[in-house]
């Protein structure tokens, strides 16, 4: 890092621009907050009729003004109402759990109290053997697991380096030297995470056991029937049917989504990279929040220098890409759908079928084909006898090409969707508009467009988020290339999105830890975008519901 020339790179400029924009937005926000606090003037709300009679630009201004006026209140509401509300809900839930346990301990009979130590005892004692045995089996399994395996793993998990010898070592056993497999921090991390999850699951099961034990006791005291095994099973297809249905999906969710996320969050606090591997000295270990600081500075060891610069640059490009990719597809797809569905155009089905081909042919085939056609010595260059580096030039060209090809991929999807909607617009709307003397342009502006916009907003949001994480298009077209120019030495390329960069960080640079940090930042980005968009679209809907 010391030998880098002290020049301001485009990445740094990008980072500065982003930070400046954020800072400016914050400043405006604080200023507005301040103004709102000092001048407690109320906003003159327009009545509904007044609002409806405004012209569209006045409406926009009015909404903007009202939004600005409401901003301070909304902000304070966030801190004074919404967050305390959440906290209250959380406290209530915790208190509820605590109260159940306390009740069972204080008012429980000996059968219920025994359930604290021997899970399912209450049921066994009340002759509901099946349920009791299930709870007991859970406890036995957990204790055995912890005793034989889990406890040890958990201990190692917190210390990470203690326990066995590091790496593969020779050890003398009974006078014979043998090789012993050393610690594997990656396994420690996995087993530790799994053990933690098991423990949480066990605690939940224990709580359920106490709740159920106490409920059985209450039923008995009230001389009511405690459901037996047969009734329990029938309940599973009726009153408790959701448990049957969701059991498998939720186990899948647990193993294949929640476990990996927890694991990666842990990973972000370690120094797992090409210099610190799981089985060879030095092993990777906990390093606290250092990685999060590194992402904003340029210094990180390992292979990727200038981490902050690259992160800033790719973040900017990811956002630009998502905006262009989403809206170009949306607008152009809508236009294509509208001209295909225009009255008087023949062979509608043919045009549609032609476009739908792109959806039907697997995307990786068409994208790889495109990448070959536009390659340096590819068909397009041969055809015109040119040598344009469509996908490898160090200019803006590869980025433009990627967006253009994405349009080719994306238009048919929008077209299909919008065609479906166009057919669903009630015909009487157009008829009454015609009677009122509206021409085709006016009909389009006042009926077609608002209708489509209204109905497709949710899918616009999802496609925006999908584009933030669009691995396929970028990786198959350019593999993220061209490589970034010196002095950067890592694997990131100029058209890399954060997601493709992650892929390279893991498989080319082996910077697992930094990859998880980037993942967490990506999560923050996507969730922020979707939360804002989601809330806004809801607000729009409530304000001017179409029809």
């Amino acid at each position: 890092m010391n030998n880098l020339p002290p020049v301001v790179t485009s990445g740094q400029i990008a980072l500065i621009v982003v930070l400046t924009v954020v800072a400016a937005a914050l400043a405006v926000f604080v200023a507005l907050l301040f103004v709102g606090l000092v001048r407690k003037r109320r906003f003159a709300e327009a009545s509904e009729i007044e609002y409806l009679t405004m012209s569209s630009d006045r409406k926009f201004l009015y909404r903007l003004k009202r939004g600005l006026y409401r901003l301070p209140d909304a902000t304070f509401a966030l801190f004074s109402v919404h967050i305390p509300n959440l906290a209250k809900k959380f406290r209530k839930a915790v208190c509820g759990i605590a109260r159940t346990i306390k009740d069972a301990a204080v008012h429980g009979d000996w059968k219920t109290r025994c359930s604290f130590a021997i899970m399912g005892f209450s049921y066994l004692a009340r002759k509901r053997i099946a349920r009791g045995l299930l709870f007991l089996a859970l406890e036995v399994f957990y204790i055995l697991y912890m005793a034989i395996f889990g406890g040890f793993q958990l201990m190692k998990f917190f210390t990470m380096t203690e326990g066995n010898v590091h790496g593969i070592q020779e050890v003398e056993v009974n006078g014979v030297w043998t090789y012993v497999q050393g610690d594997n921090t990656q396994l420690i991390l996995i087993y530790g995470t799994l053990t933690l999850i098991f423990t949480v699951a066990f605690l939940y099961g224990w709580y359920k056991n106490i709740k159920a034990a106490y409920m059985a006791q209450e039923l008995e005291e009230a001389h009511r029937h405690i459901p037996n095994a047969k009734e329990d099973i029938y309940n599973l297809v009726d009153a408790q049917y959701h448990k049957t249905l969701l059991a498998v999906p939720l186990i899948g969710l647990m193993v294949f989504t929640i476990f990996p996320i927890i694991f990666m969050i842990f990973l972000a606090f370690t120094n797992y990279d090409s210099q610190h591997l799981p089985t060879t000295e030095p092993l990777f270990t906990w390093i606290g929040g250092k990685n999060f600081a590194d992402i904003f500075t340029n210094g990180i060891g390992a292979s990727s220098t200038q981490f902050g610069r690259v992160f800033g640059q790719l973040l900017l490009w990811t956002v630009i890409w998502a905006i262009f990719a989403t809206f170009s597809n949306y607008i152009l797809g809508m236009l294509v759908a509208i001209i295909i569905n225009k009255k008087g155009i023949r062979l509608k089905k043919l045009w549609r079928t032609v476009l739908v081909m792109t959806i039907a042919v697997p995307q990786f085939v068409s994208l790889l084909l495109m990448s070959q056609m536009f390659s340096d010595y590819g068909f397009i260059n041969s055809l015109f006898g040119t040598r344009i580096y469509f996908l490898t030039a160090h200019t803006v060209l590869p980025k433009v090409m990627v967006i253009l090809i994405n349009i080719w991929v994306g238009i048919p999807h929008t077209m299909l969707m919008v065609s479906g909607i166009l057919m669903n617009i009630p015909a009487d709307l157009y008829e009454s508009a015609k009677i009122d003397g509206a021409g085709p342009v006016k009909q389009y502006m006042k009926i077609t467009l608002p209708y489509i916009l209204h109905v497709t907003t949710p899918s616009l949001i999802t496609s925006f988020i999908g584009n933030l994480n669009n691995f396929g298009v970028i990786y198959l077209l350019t593999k993220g290339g061209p490589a970034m120019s010196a002095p950067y030495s890592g694997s990131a390329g100029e058209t890399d999105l954060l997601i493709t960069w992650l892929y390279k960080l893991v498989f080319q640079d082996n910077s697992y830890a930094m990859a998880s940090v980037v993942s967490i930042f990506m999560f923050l980005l996507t969730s922020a975008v979707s939360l804002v968009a989601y809330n806004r679209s809801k607000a729009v809907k409530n304000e001017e519901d179409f029809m």
Partner: protein
Amino acid sequence: MKKHLRSKKAVERGTNAVIYVILVIISVIWIFPFVYLLFQSLSGDNTGTMDYFIPQKWTFDNYIHLFRGEGVEFDGDVVSTANIQFLSWYGRTFLIAVIVTVIQTLIVLVTSYALSRLRFKMRKPLMNLMLILGMFPGFMSMTALYFLLQLVGLTEDFGMFGLILVYTGSSCMGYYICKGFFDTIPKSLDEAARIDGANRQQVFFKVILPLSKPIIIYTILNAFMGPWGDYMFASLLVTQPANQTVAVGMLKMLDVGHTGTYADAFPRFCAAGVCVSIPITILFFILQRYYVEGITGGSVKG
């Protein structure tokens, strides 16, 4: 008055002509790559620069080589293409796709029914949880899953099962569109069945499912197409050519040097592309109606 009408008609005809021109241009742009794919797969030019859109020499050799996976002649030498085991990739991907389709469709239907029709305490929190989980980059879970599956031994030789697990594992998060469809089925039907003595399971199987043909087909189609196009997971879990899926194998075919020369590789890649596209395209066009219904019915009602 008459003149005005006629001019209006002329304008109309003019715009239509413009639209037809645009549509033809669009069609050419959209169809062109596929025709190119087909032609290249039948090309015996062996030039490597692919200058000709229409091949100078037509041949089926590319397909034959692809299926036999045998050596091809290049500069007088026989270059081994043992690394191309297209039939095995194809069969494996097809099998994965079929199994994934069955499991994923079941999981999606079941989750959607539970979230749409049943009312339980954890319903809302669960839906919020899935919304939030969906915002984590799918990639983030990938490394962790790789470690986990490696531990259990479901990579490489058994990578197929690992892939099936990965593809179906979190498929319940795709409940959104299907639930949207179920929401549109009138609740009174359920109630009527309940009054007649049906339990919730019977309502699901005998009332809701028979009414959900479009969305079931939509789900099946999506689930089936997924594994064909996945590169990320497939390249991660399986690295040996013998166990690969079509997507990974085809991308590797294009690496110059992997299979001899580029001049051989590209036409064969095209042939492989045609082989992969044909069944899916046929399936897609047969079921297209349902696909459109699925998109418009489930996804866009907000």
